[in-house]
């Protein structure tokens, strides 16, 4: 994809692309168990390729998720989408800008910026990351977690450096596999965002997938025929057997099917093109519902007032909830719960921080979290944002019941 962008930006091409790109490389060696020497080697290789490309480049290590601010998980408001006229105006202003920069600088897509590279991650962060990934029980959950963290990291880099769009290099084959995998993981509600051309769930930064019409075979041939330099790194699931994770299984399934029925991938792809991003029934037009903490899609689980949701949640949580140490309120939990259906927030979730986080996740992310026995190794920004949101929700609830719940409020111990 990088090569194609280069081609598109070059002065000789007929339809010149008009944007200012940068490249980000996320070093995930720690999650994959790579040794520091191997990682350094891979990063050096990547640096060489990035430098030869000439765009401003950023190398970020996955460990930096531990220093991300909770604002990453918030959807920022975006300027309203323009019409045809706005597009022309934007192109014109861009051209004027380039012209103002002077002819001699036009060979560089944007004024040369020093390559932004934070210092190498600290050993503490690397260890925290390996602890996190080794605490995950299944490979499926590991891959999903990696994907989520990587998205947040790239989003953060984009926001900090003022990029409005992120281009991902997902090919047709990869997206077909991703579509089927998402279905299997319970993310069916978000297929349109996960596999569509543009993904605006983050608000100010749009994720686009320009390569989604090219199959992997085409990409492979292109790379080979145009001698595109590549950097190889092991992934989380390298050398794992076929049934190790849902991702691997689905990949093997689709590719094997493709070998027998060559229209498999394109059929799945065409079907994914028909997916429409529609708001949930029952949501007032214009007011988006609460968003998932991790994937930032509008929550697809039943709202709090639904009887089935309450029943399902309570039955799945009661066996798990153990009274934490030094919690005098434990005996009163059961009577509070059965009493008021609407005030479930204030009595159940405060004793169980895990339940508080799980509540804010969509179905797919919840299933994932089941494979994470403890939420402590998660990067602090996730836990902080979860806390903030639940406190905000509690505050809203308490607004209504201010008089009745005065006792509970005073009696709640250890609320920081």
């Amino acid at each position, binding site marked *: 994809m990088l090569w194609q962008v280069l081609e598109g930006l070059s002065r000789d091409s007929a339809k010149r692309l008009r944007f200012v790109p940068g490249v980000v490389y996320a070093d995930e060696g720690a999650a994959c168990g790579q040794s520091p020497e191997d990682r350094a080697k891979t990063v050096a290789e990547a640096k060489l390729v990035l430098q030869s490309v000439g765009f401003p480049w950023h190398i970020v290590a996955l460990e930096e998720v531990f220093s991300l601010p909770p604002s990453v998980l918030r959807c920022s408001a975006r300027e309203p989408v323009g019409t045809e006229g706005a597009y022309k105006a934007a192109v014109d202003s861009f051209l004027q800008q380039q012209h103002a920069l002077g002819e001699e600088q036009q060979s560089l897509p944007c004024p040369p910026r020093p390559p932004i590279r934070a210092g190498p991650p600290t050993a503490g962060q690397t260890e925290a990351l390996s602890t996190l990934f080794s605490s995950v029980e299944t490979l499926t959950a590991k891959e999903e977690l990696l994907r989520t963290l990587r998205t947040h990291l790239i989003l953060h880099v984009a926001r900090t450096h003022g990029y409005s769009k992120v281009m991902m*290099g997902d090919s047709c084959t990869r997206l077909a596999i991703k579509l089927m995998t998402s279905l299997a993981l319970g993310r069916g509600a978000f297929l349109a965002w996960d596999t569509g051309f543009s993904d605006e769930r983050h608000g100010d930064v749009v994720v686009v997938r320009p390569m989604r019409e090219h199959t992997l075979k085409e990409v492979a041939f292109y790379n080979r025929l145009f001698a595109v330099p590549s950097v190889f790194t092991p992934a989380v699931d390298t050398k794992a057997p076929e049934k190790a994770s849902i991702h691997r299984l689905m990949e093997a399934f689709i590719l094997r099917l493709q070998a027998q029925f060559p229209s498999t991938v394109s059929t799945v792809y065409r079907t994914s093109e028909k997916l429409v991003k529609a708001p949930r029934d029952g949501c007032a037009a214009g007011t988006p519902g609460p968003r998932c903490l991790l994937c930032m899609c509008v929550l697809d689980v039943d709202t709090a007032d639904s009887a089935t949701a309450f029943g399902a949640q309570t039955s799945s949580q009661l066996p798990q909830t153990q009274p934490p140490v030094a919690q005098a309120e434990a005996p009163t939990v059961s009577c509070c719960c059965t009493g008021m259906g609407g005030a479930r927030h204030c009595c159940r979730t405060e004793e169980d921080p895990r339940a508080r986080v799980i509540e804010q996740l969509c179905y797919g992310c919840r299933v994932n979290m089941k494979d994470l026995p403890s939420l402590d190794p998660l990067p602090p920004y996730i836990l902080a944002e979860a806390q903030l949101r639940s406190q905000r929700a509690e505050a809203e609830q308490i607004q209504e019941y201010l008089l009745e719940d005065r006792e509970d409020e005073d009696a709640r111990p250890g609320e920081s």
Partner: protein
Amino acid sequence: MAAPLSVEVEFGAVVNPGKRAVRSLLFDGVKKHQVTLPGQEEPWDIRNLLVWIKKNLLKERPELFIQGDSVRPGILVLINDADWELLGELDYQLQDQDSILFISTLHGG
């Protein structure tokens, strides 16, 4: 009766920017092999070559590369930079100085 052949066998992978690609770690990290196939009764074709590779070049986990008679689905085979599907796949007969390239498009292998 086939004379000994000299072919070049190479292993590569596809890079997906935005996702990590995988080195074919099955072959000790060595990407290009100049191979001399011994003379034998039947002419050398890709089918025999795969058997030979399995016996001599694959260091571990053969099932990640070879499946049954052929390569695993998801591994592209290029013979002299041309898709092997155009040349008869397994039945293509090797010529001297041919270049065979295996590209893995799989995520974890």
